[in-house]
């Protein structure tokens, strides 16, 4: 059987008293684009650090293409863009990328990398004279210049404006189209929703949901049914499908797993004043998934 691109088995990592990653298991088959979605401090960067061999796990096992992560990186199978840093002063974009390319066995031609990272024409610019967005693109270019099979990006679009973000994802889709395995972390829900084949939601160092973005929305399926009411409202929480009840002023928001049944029950009870039904979005799912853990 062909090895998975990434395989994490029950990896755990603590920093002093804080358990950053807690028995996390994740397998990514080759060619998939996976979003690692979670709030700040969820353990995304630590997970990425362990799968790249930068951080040794306290327990559990990280494997890339059937190899020890450090070994896989040495063989040029992975390219990565850490959350920050990695740029040095006093060299040009071209010099830096040529150097990184030279460490791999079969790198991409410089021109192609510059085009993919939307940096054409900037190769003679000093790295320390670039704007924030341009610097981010150089960092992206360093991750892909070696033409690795697995590309790992930790919060790749954090410093980018909307336009730059759009261009960045178009470059990423080109790579995904070439059969690359891509893992990126983000706390932007729309990015995970739009760009990934599969979304892995992590919180407090554990996987709390794993599937396509449609599947994740369905797991939690929190369609919101809102009505205007007066008086006692707690009975609304017992209606079919209702999972949570929120009262804001005279509006009651019912988070429902079965909105049809909820609406029918409301109608039977004659309580459909100013009825409003809002479909679930990933943000709701995300909030629900990560909030659930605090209870």
């Amino acid at each position, binding site marked *: 059987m062909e090895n998975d691109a990434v395989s994490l088995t029950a990896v755990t990592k603590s920093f002093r008293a804080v358990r950053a990653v807690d028995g996390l298991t994740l397998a990514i088959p080759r060619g998939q684009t996976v979003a690692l979605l979670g709030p700040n401090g969820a353990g995304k960067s630590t997970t990425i650090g362990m799968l*790249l*061999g*930068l951080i040794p796990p306290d327990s559990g096992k990280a494997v890339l293409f059937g190899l020890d992560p450090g070994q896989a*990186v*040495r*063989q*040029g199978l*992975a*390219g*990565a863009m*850490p959350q*920050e*840093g*990695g*740029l*040095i*002063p*006093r*060299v040009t974009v071209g*010099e*830096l990328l*040529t*150097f*990184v390319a*030279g*460490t*791999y*066995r079969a790198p991409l031609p410089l021109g192609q990398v510059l085009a993919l990272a939307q940096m054409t024409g900037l190769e003679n610019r000093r790295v320390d004279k670039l704007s924030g967005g341009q610097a981010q693109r150089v960092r992206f270019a*360093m*991750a892909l210049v*070696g033409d690795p099979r697995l590309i790992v990006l930790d919060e790749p679009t954090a410093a980018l404006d909307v336009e730059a973000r759009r261009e960045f994802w178009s470059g990423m889709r080109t790579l995904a189209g070439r059969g690359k395995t891509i893992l990126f972390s983000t706390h932007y829900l729309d990015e995970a929703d739009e760009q990934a084949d599969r979304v892995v939601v992590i919180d407090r160092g554990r996987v709390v949901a794993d599937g396509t973005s449609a599947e994740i929305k369905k797991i939690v399926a929190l369609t919101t049914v809102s009505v205007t009411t007066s008086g006692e409202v707690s009975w609304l929480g017992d209606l079919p499908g209702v999972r949570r009840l929120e009262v804001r002023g005279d509006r009651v928001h019912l988070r429902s797993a079965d909105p049809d049944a909820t609406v029918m029950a409301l109608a039977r009870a004659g309580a459909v004043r100013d009825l409003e039904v809002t479909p679930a979005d990933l943000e709701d799912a995300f909030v629900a998934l990560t909030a659930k853990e605090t209870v």
Partner: protein
Amino acid sequence: MFGYIRLELLRTIRDGGYVIFGIASPVVMYLVLSNLALAPGDERSGSIVTMVSMAAYGALGCAFNNGSGIGEDRSAGWLRQLRLTPLGPVQVVAGKIVTGAVGVVPSIAAVLLTGVLVNHVELSPGQWLSIVGLLWAGTIPFALLGLGNGYALTGQTASMANIAAFLGLSIVGGLWVPTMGFPGWLRAIAEWTPSNSYATMSWHVAAGTAPGARAVAILCGWLAVFGLYALYAYRRAGRTA
């Protein structure tokens, strides 16, 4: 690894700190000091002593500057980025050491050439070769101290520590002003410093004698100390990178 050395050398020659501390300042100080004739003996031998002192001073500047570069690289996340390429950690450290060793050469050459061209210093070919060789190889302990600081401390702090060590060792070691003029207690300290032993070897050669067993022994002792320090700092930095 060749590509890495090439990249690092490019960065070195574009580094203002390297050009100022490693090349410009020793050459200028040499021209000034040799014409003030602070060194003992007649003007000719004084000029030779000062030439060796300033070449040693410049070489130390380069060696420490290289170490500060590591501190900068660590702060910039560059060492982590290198760990994400197929380049191995041994190649990275070896590349940095080679870069440091190569970077010292222009500095030594600049001062010695100024000696020949401006102050008309004349030595036998054997003496020239020995001096270049001793000044070059003798920077290793300082390079290790500089690297140790680079790994033990972060960016700005590493640079400060290296500049302090560089200037302190240069002055106390008698590279600026000969130790003859020092008070007795300071001279006693100076004779145990690595910088004084380092320059003493070449001063001896320039005066036509052997490098001196005592100076070689002291410098080797410091080599061991700084080597262990660099190793310790490197291991510690590896755990937190």
